[in-house]
């Protein structure tokens, strides 16, 4: 297994830092073309006026998921060397609720606001000023909510472990949920906000997206028929960190 390159010694840690620049470039380039540098388009998702945001997110997650687990399956990527995000269930649920409120009020999330600043949007600058303030408040008053922040820890806990089923079928289910979610949100959007005019390129766009989705479903089906121990060794505890409430404790 040669990947992750920075952790198998293929590239130096300095080279890894420099390679973050082109990776970030692709990310920012894609955010613009997704329409995510426009706060209105992001906020409209919450009114079903433009459900592009969840569709983009579903597509990004499906791509990353199929790639991550697929490359691990074919022996290219050592999944035990990839940093797995730990679950702190209740803090993440509460954080999500407040974050969603912040998104509909502010019209951005941090990545999209940064990308939007680069295109000249003043409201994104102000959002980021607020975002920095919010981060500062969290950090400076950390002892107040430090215990809650570290509570409800479940380790790197995956959906397949939670459902008690194989990782392969779980991957397929996520692909199907992404497609079902996309179609139902489109349906609601067309009901609540019927399009004023027919997009002349609608048909080509639908064919392109249909083809991409079909590929994802096919890969998902391949996954569903592999035993899950081919993907990951669950006996390896993934590294994580808990930040103590008081420095040096």
């Amino acid at each position, binding site marked *: 297994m040669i990947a992750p*390159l920075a952790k198998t010694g293929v590239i130096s840690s300095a080279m890894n*830092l*420099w390679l973050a*620049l082109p*990776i*970030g*470039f692709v*990310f*920012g380039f*894609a*955010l*613009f*073309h*997704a329409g995510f540098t426009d*706060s*209105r388009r992001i906020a409209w998702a*919450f009114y079903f006026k433009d459900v592009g945001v969840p569709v983009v*997110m579903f*597509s990004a*997650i499906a791509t*990353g998921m199929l*790639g991550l687990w697929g490359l691990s399956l074919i022996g290219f990527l050592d999944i035990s*060397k990839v940093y797995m*995000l730990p*679950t*702190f269930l209740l803090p993440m649920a*509460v*954080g*999500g*609720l*407040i*974050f*969603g409120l*912040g*998104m*509909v*009020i502010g*019209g*951005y*999330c*941090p990545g999209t606001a940064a*990308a*939007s*600043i680069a295109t000249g949007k*003043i*409201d994104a600058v102000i959002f980021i000023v*607020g975002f920095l303030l*919010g981060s*500062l*408040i969290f*950090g*400076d008053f950390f002892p107040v909510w*430090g215990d809650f922040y570290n509570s409800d820890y479940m380790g*790197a806990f995956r*959906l397949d472990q939670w459902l008690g089923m194989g990782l392969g079928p779980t*991957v397929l289910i996520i692909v199907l949920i992404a497609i079902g979610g996309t179609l139902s949100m489109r349906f609601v959007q067309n009901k609540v906000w019927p399009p004023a005019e027919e997009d002349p390129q609608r048909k080509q766009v639908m064919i392109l*997206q249909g083809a991409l989705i079909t590929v994802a479903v096919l890969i998902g089906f391949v996954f569903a028929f592999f035993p899950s121990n081919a993907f990951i060794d669950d006996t390896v505890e993934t590294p994580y960190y808990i*930040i103590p*409430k008081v*420095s040096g404790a």
Partner: protein
Amino acid sequence: MKMKFASRWPPVPAGILIGISMLLAFVVAGRGIGASGAMTRFVAWVQHGLFPAATEQSAYFGRYFADGAHPLNDYVVFLLVGLLVGSFVAAWMSGELRIEVLRGPRSSIAYRLALALTGGVLAGFAARLARGCTSGQGLVGGAELSVGAWVFLMCIFAGGWMGAWFVRKQWI
């Protein structure tokens, strides 16, 4: 119309390109992409310039300065610089670099900016509480099949829908 298509792609290919950037980070660095971490490091750096001792002793920010480290010399900061350049180049190529305040037809500039600040503070606090934002926690954790990340994503939409009615004048 041609111009519009060039600047805004259909959601599925746009999402796939975001997914590819995430995958590149997995393969090269063994970690995901993200945006809020760099901003936390930025405020830590600014505060350190004003109050060095207090910031180094801070329970939350102190770890960025452990063993004389510079908070901005980190993977997430390089990613964010790349993101800014990528978005700038994409907007420039599409002829959409414009200094303006984006808002709904019924919203004044002052109202929009006041809410942008309010939303920013909430999102900034919440991203720290949830250990990441939409990209670093939501998309990356979603791809890693993390239970916490999926709960976070669903709660984002729940929170957004709860608040939508109150700020509708800003957007529609």
